[in-house]
């Protein structure tokens, strides 16, 4: 049961060394990197649950906490089945190295696609339940009574006939020796006492006192700091650099090339490394993309809108024929730009390499892929590597990649035995992201004489994330992920409308800018294209946008239910009151993605001078089950900050092969003063498990764009809004 794997031993050894060496400026390691679970002083019941003699319960969480709150949500699910005292619960991350040594005992570490809870809920609940059964059995054994005569609640086991009690801590050691039961019955969610409740997060206090240690804050004995500059042109290389020009600057230890495209300066402090790097003469070989530009990409994507070859995502009947024979046609062309994730904490990793072992401390959304990258970059087998995860200062999909981890290992490899912390500048982060894919879309609808829709053709043209990050996921030129929210069926993201005929297809066009999973992923632009176009049809056929949607959604009751919940809460049938002498207008949007159904209504006003104000947003979510409603509300509110940042401001443009934006001054985001009131309506209907971190982002932009049309008669089909003049003639 209790494997003492080599990485544990090594960690303790390292920490002992660290303590002995001491450190003038303090010794900080994140709590989760400390060897808390040394077998000598804790009692592991099973891989998910540790119970200490004082009844403290440590719940192990394999997924990463990046602000989305699933650390707390997953702990609630385990605690619910464990029947432990919630006030004595804490959490820790198992390491990917331990997972490897224990045959992936904690399952998938990947924290993306809003899957943290929905993909692992069943096995973590079973982990809690089996631990409870083992603790009860251990107590029953001690009392020499049948386990069936015992019950557990609040970390206390009671022998019902005699009233005797034992606390979990008293029987933990014995429980840990028992076999893990295989037959487990999970609670019906309607009986939940800890899950489903509006519990406070477990990680809040340290985040308001400055005590939370992020990767950027790591300090270790003997640690050096590195700043890095990658070739500003994607696909370019280092031609030369003059290290001697900065060799005498204070604190500089070494100038190293990283891979074939980057140069790093290693110094005693990061500020000295960064300023020395600024002064380092570097010549780049800008390579084949030196002339790439957003304008050139737009021409290629535009051509894709009419290309004969396209991969089909959803097809009902013969939409092309129905369009050709339609008495009336409506057509609109939309586009969506590149965007940077812009996590508040720039990319960083601390690595220590020796010929025998490579260790990395980093905020990552996927500990296992981080370990694989560490192994590859270090040239050591995975069993000689370890990754210690640290809470993320924002992830949003960016930290599902491993590029900065590889860099940190390549730097550490050139400084054997010395821990080196690599941290990117904001400028490096802005110019070397994994950007939201760029796409264009042509929407066409055929109408009959009564204005009924006879056909819809949605032609997407543009970038595939999978083609760049997981090419084996693309088959015959078809990337299934580009059709998020548009599929005919399925629990992940199916279209909420039924049209007599429909064709959704995609012409893949991949520019040189590296794409990545950007919170909400392809649902973001797909929702804009579909939801704004539905509004265009409603307007062209003089129908109420809600009434038209309801007509098209009769076969999609779950999609319709969240839309109806929004309409009811916002009071769709009554016009909104004026605000500050301005008339207020509404716009709707709905979509299904990441397993959940979402809808929103935005209320906006546009002044005569074209000033847009978003006053209020009502948003509804059906995630099946709501594990922590107040954290779902936080995710819904946050989704509007992310989604409205994209709609109002978000754009990365390319000129001469490089991203033109460099920092938050030229890549503005939503601030406090832009934020509308957000009212969240949670309607969990049960029977399925959906995600909540991402789907709502997709309805932010189309709800606002449709409200802007209602206010001004202007259709905005290209984002961001900052380029458009809403001034009324």
């Amino acid at each position, binding site marked *: 049961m209790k494997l003492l794997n080599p990485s544990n031993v090594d960690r303790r050894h390292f920490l002992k060394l660290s303590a002995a060496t001491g450190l003038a400026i303090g010794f900080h390691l994140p709590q989760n990197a400390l060897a808390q679970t040394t077998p000598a002083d804790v009692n592991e019941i099973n891989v998910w649950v540790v119970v200490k003699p004082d009844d403290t319960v440590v719940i192990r969480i394999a997924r990463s906490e990046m602000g989305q709150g699933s650390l707390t949500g997953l702990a609630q699910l385990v605690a619910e089945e464990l029947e432990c005292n919630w006030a004595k619960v804490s959490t820790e991350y198992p390491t990917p190295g331990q997972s490897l040594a224990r045959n992936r005992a904690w399952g998938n570490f990947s924290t993306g696609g809003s899957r943290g809870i929905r993909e692992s809920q069943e096995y973590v609940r079973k982990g809690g339940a089996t631990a409870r059964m083992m603790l009860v059995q251990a107590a029953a054994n001690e009392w020499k009574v049948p386990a069936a005569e015992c019950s557990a609640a609040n970390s206390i086991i009671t022998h019902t006939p005699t009233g005797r009690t034992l606390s979990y801590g008293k029987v933990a050691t014995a429980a840990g020796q028992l076999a893990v039961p295989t037959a487990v019955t999970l609670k019906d969610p309607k009986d939940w006492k800890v899950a489903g409740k509006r519990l406070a997060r477990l990680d809040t206090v340290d985040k308001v006192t400055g005590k939370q240690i992020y990767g950027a804050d790591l300090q270790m004995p003997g640690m050096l700091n590195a700043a890095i500059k990658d070739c500003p042109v994607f696909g370019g290389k280092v031609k030369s650099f003059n290290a001697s020009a900065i060799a005498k600057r204070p604190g500089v230890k070494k100038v190293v090339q990283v891979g074939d495209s980057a140069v790093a300066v290693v110094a005693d402090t990061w500020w000295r490394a960064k300023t020395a790097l600024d002064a380092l003469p570097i010549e780049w070989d800008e390579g084949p993309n030196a002339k790439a530009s957003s304008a050139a990409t737009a021409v290629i994507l535009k051509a894709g809108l009419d290309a004969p070859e396209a991969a089909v995502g959803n097809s009902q009947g013969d939409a092309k024929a129905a369009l050709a024979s339609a008495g009336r046609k409506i057509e609109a062309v939309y586009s969506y730009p590149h965007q940077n994730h812009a996590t*508040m904490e720039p990319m960083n990793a601390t690595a220590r390499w020796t010929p025998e072992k490579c260790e990395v401390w980093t905020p990552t959304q996927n500990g296992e892929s981080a370990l694989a990258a560490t192994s590859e970059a270090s040239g050591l087998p995975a069993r000689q590597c370890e990754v210690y995860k640290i809470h993320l200062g924002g992830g949003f999909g960016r930290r599902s990649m491993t590029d900065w981890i590889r860099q940190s290992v390549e730097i550490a490899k050139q400084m054997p035995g010395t821990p080196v912390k690599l941290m990117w500048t904001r400028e490096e982060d802005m110019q070397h992201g994994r950007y939201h894919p760029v796409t264009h879309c042509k929407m066409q609808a055929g109408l009959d004489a009564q204005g009924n829709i006879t056909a819809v053709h949605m032609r997407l043209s543009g970038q595939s994330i999978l083609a760049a990050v997981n090419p084996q996921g693309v088959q015959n030129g078809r990337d299934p992920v580009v059709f998020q929210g548009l599929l005919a069926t399925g629990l992940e993201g199916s279209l909420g409308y039924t049209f007599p005929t429909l064709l959704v297809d995609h012409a893949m066009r991949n520019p040189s800018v590296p794409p990545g999973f950007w919170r909400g992923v392809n649902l973001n632009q797909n929702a804009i294209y579909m939801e704004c176009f539905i509004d265009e049809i409603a307007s062209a056929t003089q129908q109420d946008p809600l009434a038209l949607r309801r007509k098209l959604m009769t076969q999609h009751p779950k999609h319709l239910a969240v839309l109806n919940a929004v309409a009811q809460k916002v009071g769709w049938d009554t016009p909104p009151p004026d605000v500050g002498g301005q008339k207020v207008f509404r716009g709707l949007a709905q979509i299904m993605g990441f397993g959940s159904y979402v809808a929103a209504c935005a209320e906006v006003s546009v002044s005569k001078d074209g000033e847009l104000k978003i006053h209020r947003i009502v948003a509804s979510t059906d995630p099946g089950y709501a594990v922590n409603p107040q954290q779902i509300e936080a995710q819904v509110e946050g989704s509007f900050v992310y989604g409205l940042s994209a709609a109002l401001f978000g754009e990365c443009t390319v000129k001469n092969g490089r991203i033109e934006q460099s920092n938050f001054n030229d890549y503005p985001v939503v601030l406090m003063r832009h934020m509308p009131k957000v009212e969240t309506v949670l309607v969990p209907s049960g029977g399925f498990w959906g995600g909540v971190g991402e789907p709502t982002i997709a309805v932010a932009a189309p709800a606002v764009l449709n409200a802007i049309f209602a206010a001004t008669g202007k259709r905005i089909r290209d984002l961001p809004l900052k380029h458009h003049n809403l001034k009324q003639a």
Partner: protein
Amino acid sequence: MAKINVNGATRQFKAEPDTPLLWVLREQLGMTGTKYGCGIAVCGACTVHINGVPTRSCVRPISSVGPREKVVTIEGLSPNGSHPVQKAWVALDVPQCGYCQSGMVMAAAALLKTKPNPSDADIDAAMSNICRCGTYNRIRAAIKAVAQGSTRSAGLDIQHTNGSVA
């Protein structure tokens, strides 16, 4: 050795005069609660108080901070997280990833000191810090809760491990 006064204590350090205060705090003094976000005084993650004034420490050369000026960082705002702003932040579960929150808390504490009952416009103007997770509405609610002396007004009904409900 140069000197600065941080959180009530005089601290000695060695750094080039043009080193920003942020990096002296983080690297010379080991106080990492104050964060680097942009380096150009736009995001506010590096906000500290200098003589009570909220200041973006990432562009403030250390040579311009006199030894008698009183620098207060998130670590020194209260001894144990008991500042009313910190208490309200905890009660309303404001942080998500938390990286921007040191700066947010420092900016809010400075605002409430000069304007104990700030209007929405005051909050908009003073709280220009960037949060990417999207905690703005809870921050606004928490600032108002401090002003009103009660977190119940926010109506979030968050249950804490000690049994209390905010």
